[in-house]
């Protein structure tokens, strides 16, 4: 069944979009990430203009994250203070990300910028995740206890001023790296149309040394709030948010997330991280192919806004 998307100005198969929403929702529920890094490329691949895809995916991420965030909130499996600080940095980052998005779109380099960012970001983060989780799996196999947080293994940025005690996470450190993490992650995410969950989670674990139990809930809240704001920012400045496309994606996403969450709970943490790492790298490689292989057509035409 074809449905015409009013903003993207093209017809799409409603079940196909629903399937994308379902599949990505399943993955996001399973790994506790927004899944934007999959949805944006998939939408671009089926012919949705990159600008519309990146702007609309913010809705999909906000929608699928909501139910998960709600569940974590009820279980109090998050650190409110940490989340609040991340959101502060994140909102500024999101605003700058939208500005950058509009600027690059105006000079016609948005697509390349998005593709390049994907390759760099996904391959680096994915490789790190694979390396880390393989080590964790090996450690578990050889029977050695999992690495405990070593007190005193503080990096220089933990000693910055404005120290704060994050009671829930049982960490004591400067608020500056938290703000910076929030800013950088959301700047990148809003700009390239991802949720940023897969960036916040490792950043909090490895940089802030926050316990895994609060990290996912905290990152979900951050993603939720900044994505909701990003929807409004995108809609108000570049008018590229397609509400119809968003609604179909969310319905699929919310359904998929429920099944994904159940599968995720039955799988071990390091195995999940390895799988997610592989997935992230695979998407990165797919984008790299686009950059490194000679394209079928050296030329590309894009309509510019006349309004």
């Amino acid at each position, binding site marked *: 069944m*074809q*449905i*015409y998307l*009013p*903003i993207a*100005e*093209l*017809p799409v198969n409603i079940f196909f979009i629903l399937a994308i929403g379902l599949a990505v929702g399943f993955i996001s529920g399973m790994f506790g990430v927004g899944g934007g890094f999959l949805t944006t490329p998939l939408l671009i691949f089926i012919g949705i203009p990159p600008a519309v895809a990146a702007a609309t995916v913010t*809705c999909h991420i*906000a*929608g*699928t*994250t*909501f*139910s*998960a965030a*709600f*569940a974590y909130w*009820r279980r109090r499996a998050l650190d409110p203070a940490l989340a609040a600080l991340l959101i502060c940095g994140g909102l500024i980052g999101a605003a700058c990300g939208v500005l950058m998005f509009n600027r690059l779109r105006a000079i*016609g*380099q948005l697509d*390349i910028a998005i593709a*390049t960012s994907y390759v760099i970001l996904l391959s680096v983060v994915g490789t790190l995740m694979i390396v880390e989780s393989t080590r964790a799996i090996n450690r578990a196999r050889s029977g050695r206890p999992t690495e405990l947080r070593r007190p005193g293994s503080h990096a220089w940025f933990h000693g910055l001023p404005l120290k704060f005690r994050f009671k829930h996470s049982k960490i004591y450190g400067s608020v500056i790296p938290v703000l910076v993490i929030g800013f950088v992650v959301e700047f990148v995410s809003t700009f390239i149309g991802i949720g940023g969950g897969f960036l916040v989670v490792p950043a909090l674990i490895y940089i802030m040394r926050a316990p895994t139990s609060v990290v996912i809930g905290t990152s979900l809240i951050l993603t939720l709030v900044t994505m*909701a704001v990003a*929807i*409004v*920012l*995108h*809609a*108000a*400045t570049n*008018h590229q*948010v397609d*509400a*119809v496309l*968003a*609604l179909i994606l*969310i*319905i699929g996403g*919310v*359904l998929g*997330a*429920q099944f994904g969450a159940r599968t995720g709970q039955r799988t071990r943490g390091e195995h999940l991280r390895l799988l997610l790492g592989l997935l992230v790298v695979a998407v990165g490689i797919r984008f790299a192919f*686009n*950059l*490194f*292989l*000679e*394209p079928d*057509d*050296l*030329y*590309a*035409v*894009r*309509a*510019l*806004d*006349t*309004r």
Partner: protein
Amino acid sequence: MRSKAALILLSVTVLCAQSAPAAAQRLIASISNHRVMVTSSFTGADLVLFGAIETNTPRRGGYDIVATITGPRQNAITFRKDRRLGIWLNVDSREFENVPSYLAVLANRELDEIASADTRRRLQLGLENIPLTQRAAVTIADAAADDPFRQAFLRINMQRGLYREAMNGVTFMAPLLFRADIPLPAGVSVGNYEVDVRLFADGAMIARAPSAFEVYKAGFEQFVTTTSRTHGFLFGLVTAVMTLATGWIGSVVFRRD
């Protein structure tokens, strides 16, 4: 007073009629649908152009028809990729200003059989003779027909079905009666489409009939598009609320604890 004006009008008409060539042709053309509605189930449309040649003394050699359909104009950019440090990047681009978003040239036979190269150029007949203004660094000019950016622009738009040149697009059902199919792909822009039907005989244009149709969004699509443009902030808020509400409904429906 009125009778005087009528008299002048009459004499002018008579004068005009006398100065016109002996075998005057009139071209009449009409489109099956003047308003194409884009709704949620829009997957493209097919319009039919009908036309008749009115003449007292039909030519023995027959007539030729060339119909040019021009969609709403827009600016477009054509990028060229090249390898830089192993990566394929957009290294060069040309901006096409005020070019048709849809362009179809339909004729009953090959254009070079209908009119000479000179005439075709003068009348902007056929895709290769339609001006596509390009903005280079400083000047704005129509690019030469063999310009690679222009070629790529035409080729890609033809692949998308937005530009077409069909030399069998016009069919004569009777010596003085013709029809042409105008296929509009799903990706057409909304706006006014100009249809210019031209009648040729012996390599010269002898009559033309302009016509037009409009592609417009209606109902919900229209509402969404307009609102997103005019009330972007509000549109964003509503979308955000809708998004969160869907997420919330999902979490309520699937609640297990």
